[in-house]
């Protein structure tokens, strides 16, 4: 009996209902409905209901910024689309790759998985906030990248640099292996990990010498 059922249930005789059951079980949807945002510049235009925006104050790179955010808005989206800081990259939007890493009160955090409203009253630092605003002098870790020609396509670079700056606050004199562990939550698809680590170690050295 069971065998016969199995035989009938082959892919080319799949029914629509079975199919949808399977799809639901596998978690697929017609379009990925997360990873959405609204833009401040488009306010006032007719758009679908869903979210009420709220004016809050964020402290980004030492400046207070007033922004309208939805309650479900992530910090990565706010930074990129409302504060205009596009140096923070979105690689996966699900805390897998670390490209969106920023410092929140000195702690490296995945901004794609941090709700913006939870960061009120905290100090956010992005890649744009590392260099000296007045002189343009690069942060020691940024200088390490320049010295070693770290990174290839560099889409992961802002995240790696922020993760390293954060890690070095807890361990200013790491071994290569310690630093690798400290920033292993970041993914590089050019996979030039060796040169990245060399550049970050050079940055750590610059920081100690500063």
């Amino acid at each position, binding site marked *: 009996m069971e065998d016969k059922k199995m035989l009938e249930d082959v892919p080319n005789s799949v029914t629509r209902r079975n199919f949808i059951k399977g799809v639901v079980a*596998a978690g697929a949807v017609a379009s990925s409905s997360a990873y959405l945002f609204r833009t401040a510049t*488009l306010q006032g235009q007719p*758009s679908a209901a869903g979210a009420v925006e709220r004016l809050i104050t964020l402290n980004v790179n030492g400046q207070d910024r007033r922004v309208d955010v939805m309650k479900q808005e992530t910090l990565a989206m706010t930074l*990129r689309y409302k504060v205009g800081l596009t140096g923070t990259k979105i690689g996966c939007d699900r805390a897998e790759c670390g490209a969106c890493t920023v410092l929140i009160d000195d702690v490296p955090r995945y901004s794609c998985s941090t709700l913006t409203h939870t960061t009120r009253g905290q100090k956010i630092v992005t*890649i744009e906030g590392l260099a000296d605003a007045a002189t343009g002098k690069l942060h020691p870790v940024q200088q390490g990248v320049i010295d070693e020609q770290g990174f290839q396509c560099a*889409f992961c670079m802002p995240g790696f640099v922020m993760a390293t700056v954060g890690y070095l606050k807890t361990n200013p004199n790491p071994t290569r292996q310690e630093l690798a562990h400290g920033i292993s939550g970041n993914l590089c698809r050019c996979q030039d990990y060796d040169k990245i680590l060399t550049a970050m170690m050079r940055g750590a050295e610059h920081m100690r010498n500063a």
Partner: protein
Amino acid sequence: MADTKLIGQPYTTPDLVAKVTGKAKYAEDYRVDGMLFCKLLVSPMPHARVKKLDTSAAMAMPGVKAILTADDMPGAAAGATLGENVQATAQAERGLTNEPLYQGEPILAIAAVDEATAAEAIEKIDIELEPLPFAVDPIETMRPNSPNARTQGNVWMRPTTPPAAPAAGAAAGRAGRGGGAAAPAPPQIAVWKWTDEDFAAAKDGQMPLGKATDEWSFGNIEEGFKKADLVLDETFMTQSTGHQPLETRTAMAYWQNGKLYLHGSTQSTVQTVASVARWTGTTPDKVVIISEYTGGGFGSKIPGAISMAIPALLSKKANAPVMMRVTREDEHFIGRARPGVLARVKAGFRKDGRITAIDMYAICDNGPYDPQGDARSASTTISLAYQPETMRWRGLTVLTNTPPKVSQRAPGGMQGVGIMEPILSKAARKLGVDQVEIHKINAPAGKAPFGPALPNGRQAYVTSAFVKEALDKGREMFKWEEKKALYSGKKQGSKARGLGVAVSPFAGGSIGFDGLFIIKPDGRVQIQSGIGNHGTHSAFDVHRVAAEMIGVPWEKCDIVFGSTAKNLPWTCISAGSQTAHAMTRAAHAAAKDCIKKLQEIAAKTKGGNPDTYKVANERVTGPGGSLTFAQAAQKAIELGGKFDGHEVPEDINNFTKTSAKALAGQGLMAVAKDAYPRDGQSQSYVIGFAEVEVDTETGVVTVIDYAAIGDVGTILNPRGLKGQLFGGSMLGLGHAKTQRWAYDQHYGVALARRFYQNKPPTMLDAPLNFTGDAVNIPDPETPTGVRGVGEPPVGAAYGAIMNAIADAIGDEIFRRSPVSADIILNALENNGKRTHEALTAHI
């Protein structure tokens, strides 16, 4: 080029400060007033037909501006030449479809004032899909009466054509493909099944040897096998893997004065114009590509991406700029993938390890769209890497309802090395030959032949090969003999160590492109670069050849790149390890043109014979006196004609002519085509040496030490070289250890869609020690000596690491990759005999 100031010296690329300060703009970082956003409706099924589609409720929503369906997409005329040896088929991908051929294939797109609105509108689309039969496993679709991936059939096949007679070593065409084969006729889809007898004849997990669509050979393999002292017959499955660049294929487009401005993520700048024109149904003169920074491609964005047509055409329909952000999940489906290759190889060895015959049958898991050459390229790679005395290859390109496949870093080459290396190392152990020695005795040297026998009875051949030299250098660097005495095959507690080596060749350069630069009246040199800036540094590296030749400090060179509105020269695709070779030749040609013009200007101004003037240190100096570059540039403008670009050589590409015309009159223009001769096909080689530790209790494989040694011509940029060697090795490591797809075979849907599921390597997977270097022997067939390096490290690491795992725990543990912990543990439990066979894909 002895005593170089720039070539072979480390430097900082001019784009690095922008990258490290967050100022560099990738496709999603652009903003335009009134920009709309778009979302896709994608197929939840692996194969279906749209039966009903009603967009009216979505269109009526406030904020929705336009809806694009398959009916809005242009199709290419079947048989049309699409450039780069690509011919249009009626079955080609169009960007949107009414018959989705894989889960995740876009059916329609909606542009709205924001993404939330677009997504809500997607939910309001009234759509009905009729499920159709599907196939996600290439072997299953070869069974009698099994479902086909497309309504027309299950394989691509090329009707037999009378073989043309290409000169041996003619232009390589697309990287690594074909190995000197005749120009193919347009391929067709056909129904192609094996018989029950074919399946019954294959025992012990071996691949059945049913009829093939494709075949080539050289020599007599029967005679070859007669000479063999050892014959091995093995089946191996290499997996399909997504390219997974960290930047998805996001694009933003708008139209202005009838021209399309497309900000997109692409590997190539100039070479993306024609493909976007084709995908959007317009002409190349109406397309401007802006791509200053691209977050990786690895073959998946060679001429951009067909999905770029969606925001481009939506923008036209909505009459507003449209940004299409591609999510990581969408990228899994539309982001392209390397075809898995399933192969069975019978190989004959003499006692000393020399290969007398190879009989290979390979199946390419092609996905649903255009035919990929990986199964064939795997075979030509094997014929080059191991120089068998005789060889036959048979192949099938099987359609599956999986995401579209395309070249991934060492397409087919990586798979070929991975298929052959476990056989070679097994033979070495059986024959008692050292692993390095068995590679050396079979290594290509000089103008090594490879691929099928051509009509003249000979094979195509390479420009050069110094693989034996690289093997010797690597053996020293890696301390092979010392390690062998210490570790090989020895176990300490639960940890077993093993050593492996692999030879990996891949196409290393094309020819025939143009160089273009201008010496300005302020003495600075403005160099036009049409190369994509996707992380290889080639966009800048190659121009150091020109700077070196004309004797100008690098600091005085300004590289113009990143937009086809900036008057760029005709440039190769930034892929297939072509660029460093092709564009240093073009830079060399332009620099020679520059020197000649400087000499002529000096002779005209100061008198005497142009040949008596020398160019060095930003001056042209001779018997009549000396001119600075600044003075010569000013003089060039006064002279006009060819000197300032008002007249250009006939042989340069029309694309370059248009650019030169726009730049004429600004200074001394150097412009020339690479017309240098080349005898043979340019191939590069990397040798990988790996030491691994396998924990036999957990199945965890740790790469302790790894060395990559390149035979890649003259070293252009040592940092770039090491980066390519390391990054490429990591891609091979990922294929050997972790990266894979998983499919629900019953419903044909993907289960491993995200990084944490399909597991690209992290920093903690990287070898604890890594050495990368090259033999630094110039290629004799190119004036700069430079060959490409991006591809061959991939296969080297893939093969060497798998060989080292086999060395540590046995030759019968695995017949598929990745060699995951479950494969290792189950086989060890099973007395060292594998439990995971090769025949089922995506498990």
